[in-house]
């Protein structure tokens, strides 16, 4: 039959094009075949596949009246079409059936792709043999939060998704499944516990109450929904007209502990979504409104930014007996218990606010080796945990080299280079090549150079050959090319004030290059001021960031041109790396 369609298609194409562009090898129809086509002499049916056996050439399906039908087919002659989930085309194959060679059709497939649960439309000939199958799945979209995600042995991973109603859905997914975030393809490893995702599912109903779901595609929220802050204070009032929580004596949880006080912070809430706990027990928002306003203890508030505004999503009421532990490493994890390198044993319950990578996660996602900043109650119960990533520079590397040659808009080579490791430059007397492209950013002491790649040439009046640049590279690619002084002095300390133009640092140590050790800058802890210049590079969590993103509590290491002691505590910082 397929051959038949093919032949008709070729004939029609040849006629319509009026040219003999193809070497046509016509296969003629016998009288019966011709008559069948002429009179639409075929049967048709619809149903759901119960079983398909291509080896033995039969298919079993259930019709809309609930009757089970078994039909045979010739594997080599059956035409099969199945709509891939990503195809938006509404063409269902009629034209394509008449003109099989018409053009590329993403629906064309083989009988092996017809699986139990598929909805099918079939045609069969007068011998009751199936000649054509058009199949499709019912797709549903599910939206929710990743409760846990783990890679299994082999090529599969396990995803546990919590939907909006709190129901859990478990999926085993192949590593090859398409994953996107912000329209860009990612691998499965981009999924983190606490992420909001939407998934496309092919739902197959195999019988009464028997549903099989096959995950087809995953879209990860493009960081539009994340934990933006954790606060503490007391509930002054809840305005249910505006759905606002007024938090008095508010302090923000920052790296160095708790921020300065704010009298009242109004923050949105959704009464249908917010979780509230009092000393470990869940309580309703009405209970909070009536009984926990102006309570003597603290309420810890997890605030999530969603649709461009901050909402309180979890309230944890505790007594004022609390300790903020310094960042330390998790050494042991078992259900409900976490042990820290500092020797503390911390008890974890459902009320704890645990944040990792700006996502609210469950206790079971805490892992040995995590760096955790915790707030614990008097009984060593975990109230808040911020699990910080020890990424620092991540895949970013800092080099300094003299330009040897440039291949326009492609790559450049340095004669030799130094690589920054910690606060020391290590010289390598070998050439090294870096790729450049339209995304490479060029900076000078004046700041960003628009269209810098067009002036980065090894010829002409402005030839860059022999010039020395600092190169911020990711792998072999130059992410930034910066004209800056050779910054060999260094300091380290903790940021206590940052305004985008300069940063004030306390607990400052400077590196004594001849003694080869870190020395305390001031016994009185006078601190130091690091000036941000237009060509300063700041690296945090494996990314280059603007100065405005530096926070109080950031522990930094800054590369300076001048020794801090000689510069009386104020120096220009050229490379600043946030280390904790």
């Amino acid at each position, binding site marked *: 039959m397929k051959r038949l369609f093919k032949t008709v298609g070729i004939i029609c194409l040849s006629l319509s094009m009026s040219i003999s562009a193809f070497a046509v090898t016509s296969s003629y129809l016998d009288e019966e075949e011709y008559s069948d086509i002429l009179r639409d002499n075929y049967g048709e049916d619809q149903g*759901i596949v119960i079983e398909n056996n291509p080896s033995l050439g039969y298919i079993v399906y259930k019709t809309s009246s609930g009757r089970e039908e078994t039909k045979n087919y010739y594997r080599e002659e059956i035409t099969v079409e199945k709509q891939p989930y990503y195809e938006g085309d509404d063409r269902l194959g009629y034209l394509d059936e008449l003109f099989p060679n018409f053009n590329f059709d993403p629906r064309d497939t083989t009988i092996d792709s017809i699986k139990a649960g598929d909805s099918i439309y079939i045609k069969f000939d007068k011998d009751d043999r199936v000649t054509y199958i058009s199949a499709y799945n019912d797709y549903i979209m599910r939206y929710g939060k990743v409760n846990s995600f783990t890679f299994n042995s082999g090529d599969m991973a396990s995803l546990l998704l919590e939907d909006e109603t709190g129901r859990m859905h478990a999926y085993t997914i192949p590593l090859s499944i398409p994953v996107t975030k*912000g329209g860009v393809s990612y691998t499965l490893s981009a999924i983190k516990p606490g992420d909001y995702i*939407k998934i496309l599912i092919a739902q197959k109903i195999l019988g*009464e109450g028997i549903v099989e779901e096959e995950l087809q595609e995953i879209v990860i929220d493009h960081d539009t*929904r994340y934990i933006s802050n954790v606060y503490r204070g007391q509930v002054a009032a809840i305005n249910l*007209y505006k759905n606002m929580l007024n938090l008095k004596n508010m302090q923000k949880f920052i790296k160095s502990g708790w921020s300065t006080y704010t009298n009242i912070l109004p923050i949105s809430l959704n009464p249908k979504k917010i979780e509230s706990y009092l000393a470990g027990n869940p309580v309703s928002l009405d209970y909070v409104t009536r009984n926990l306003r102006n309570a003597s203890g603290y309420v810890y508030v997890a605030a999530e930014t969603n*649709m*461009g*505004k901050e909402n309180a999503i979890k309230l944890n009421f505790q007594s004022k007996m609390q300790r903020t532990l310094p960042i330390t490493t998790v050494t042991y994890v078992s259900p409900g218990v976490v042990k820290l390198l500092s020797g503390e044993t911390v008890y974890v319950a459902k009320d704890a606010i645990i944040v990792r990578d700006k996502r609210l996660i469950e206790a079971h996602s805490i892992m040995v080796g995590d760096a955790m900043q915790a707030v614990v109650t008097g009984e060593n119960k975990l109230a808040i945990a911020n699990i910080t990533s020890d990424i620092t520079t991540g895949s970013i590397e800092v080099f300094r080299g003299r330009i040897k040659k440039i291949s326009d808009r492609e790559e450049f080579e340095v004669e030799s280079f130094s690589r920054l490791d910690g606060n020391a430059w290590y010289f390598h007397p070998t050439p090294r090549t870096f790729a450049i492209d339209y995304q490479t950013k060029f900076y000078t002491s004046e700041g960003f150079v628009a269209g810098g790649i067009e002036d980065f040439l090894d010829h002409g009046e402005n030839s860059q050959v022999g010039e020395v640049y600092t190169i911020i590279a990711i792998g072999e690619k130059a992410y930034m090319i910066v004209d800056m002084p050779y910054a060999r002095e260094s300091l380290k300390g903790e940021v206590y004030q940052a305004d985008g133009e300069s940063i004030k640092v306390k607990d400052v140590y400077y590196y004594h290059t001849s003694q080869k050790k870190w020395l305390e800058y001031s016994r009185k802890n006078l601190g130091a001021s690091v000036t941000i210049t237009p060509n300063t590079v700041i690296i945090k969590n494996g990314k280059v*960031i603007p100065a405005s993103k530096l926070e109080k509590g950031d522990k930094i290491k800054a590369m300076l041109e001048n020794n801090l002691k000689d510069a009386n505590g104020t120096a220009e910082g050229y490379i600043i790396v946030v280390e904790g």
Partner: protein
Amino acid sequence: MKKILLIGISFILSVSSLSALEGEMGYFGGVSTGIKLPTITALSQTKKSSTTSKYTLPYKENIYLSGKPETVEGTIEIRPGKGIDKEKGQGKYTENYIIKAQNADGTAKMTRNMSFETQYIYEAERKQTTKTSKMLKWTEVVVSGGETYQLDSKQSSYTKSILEDYAPGVSYYRGDIQYDAVYTPLAGEGTNEPITISVDGPIYGYEQAFAKTETQRRNIMIDLGDTQYYVEETPTLTVHKDIQYGANEPDAISFAGNYKELIRSEGALNYNIIVGSPELYDDELIGTLNVTNAPVIEQLSIPSLPRIKGHPAESDIKKMYSLKIYTDTPAAFSPNQVVRRQEYIAMLVRALRIPLPPAPKKTNTAFGTAANANIGETSPFNDVKEGDTYYPYVKAAYDAGLIGGGTLNGSRQLTREEMYVLNMRVLGLERLGIGTGNVVTPFVDDKQISQSAKAAIYAASKLGIITPSNGYVFPKKYVTKAEGAAFLGQLIDYLRYDLQKDYNEKMLMN
């Protein structure tokens, strides 16, 4: 009983059909809060205040001429025009948008004035309207990066077309917008190279009694001559009616508490700069703006229902009375009484504010005044006469496409599967069940489901508005008043809170 029924009828009678659905954010990438839905009190006024012809809403938009997002904030003034005339079936109207916005320090500003002429065809058979708009006037001045740009309206073009589809209880729409805006720098300032911004993308939305929403997808190409930028935007707005119960504090008060509806509105704009200024850091390529305003509060009256105190469906039943969906005399109310088909249809008509047919006119005859005589009107039903109590409701349901004509069997007891079929029809989402669901549903008692109800039940299960009991749906079980209140409450909650998620939360994630 009759009195309550009349009150119910009177407020629904005055409900005007939904007309100007789309365009409450403008069509230029900004977001507003949208126009608030009318309160029940406003809908019930017999003497209408003059129709509002102008709305001014808070507004935010991003300007990308520098390759970086510059957020400007101000107002959008909308004159939506007179809308469509379904009687005539075709026509045109003019819609106007005036936007004035600037950023905090005044370095980025924008004023825009646009008028569209919108022509339409309403197809009564399909219950759909096709609208096509052309630009009548477009003036715009933008200040960005120290330069002032003026729109060259002769070089610019704009086209939009929208298809509205009227399900019995929800009006949906989808449209497409494409425009090229050409800006020239004002004389004497910088380069005279014109800038072209090309925008295309679909627009989706719906409007119903409890919520409305609109979401646009916008692909923006900015051509500065020697530099190009590309940005994707998703502006969305949602207006919905929230319901809250307020218990009274004093004891010495004649009622213990009551429900109130709060009409909330919010807009959000998600942007993703695919190609922007190279100066932007990775974290600055994406972002979201939000715009919101204060809610409108409306108290709902509540009857005394001492007989259902402590009943599991007490709050659902009270809600139905407060929303004037249940109109039985409270003293005679029995939660175990089975709902009749015609009763449930009337409940849906009242819940979804489906417009009732014009009230029957009284005519003077030789024998006095003949009340309830529907002049020239023939009932589409064999078993419901024009003067019957439920006639206005079943006729309204018939006109809206919720039920067909012929034999209604209105006094027959309602089964759960019949209820689900009506619920899905009122939402206009039966299509979601066509396919697998025609054959078999995921429920254990699938064999008990009538063939004609399978698709609706499957669609309802996909939407999550069926809560199976241990995997069973009991399709042939009669629906009692108490169950009816709970099921209707679930349907209304879906309309208030959940339907919108497909258009905002889920579409913002991309």
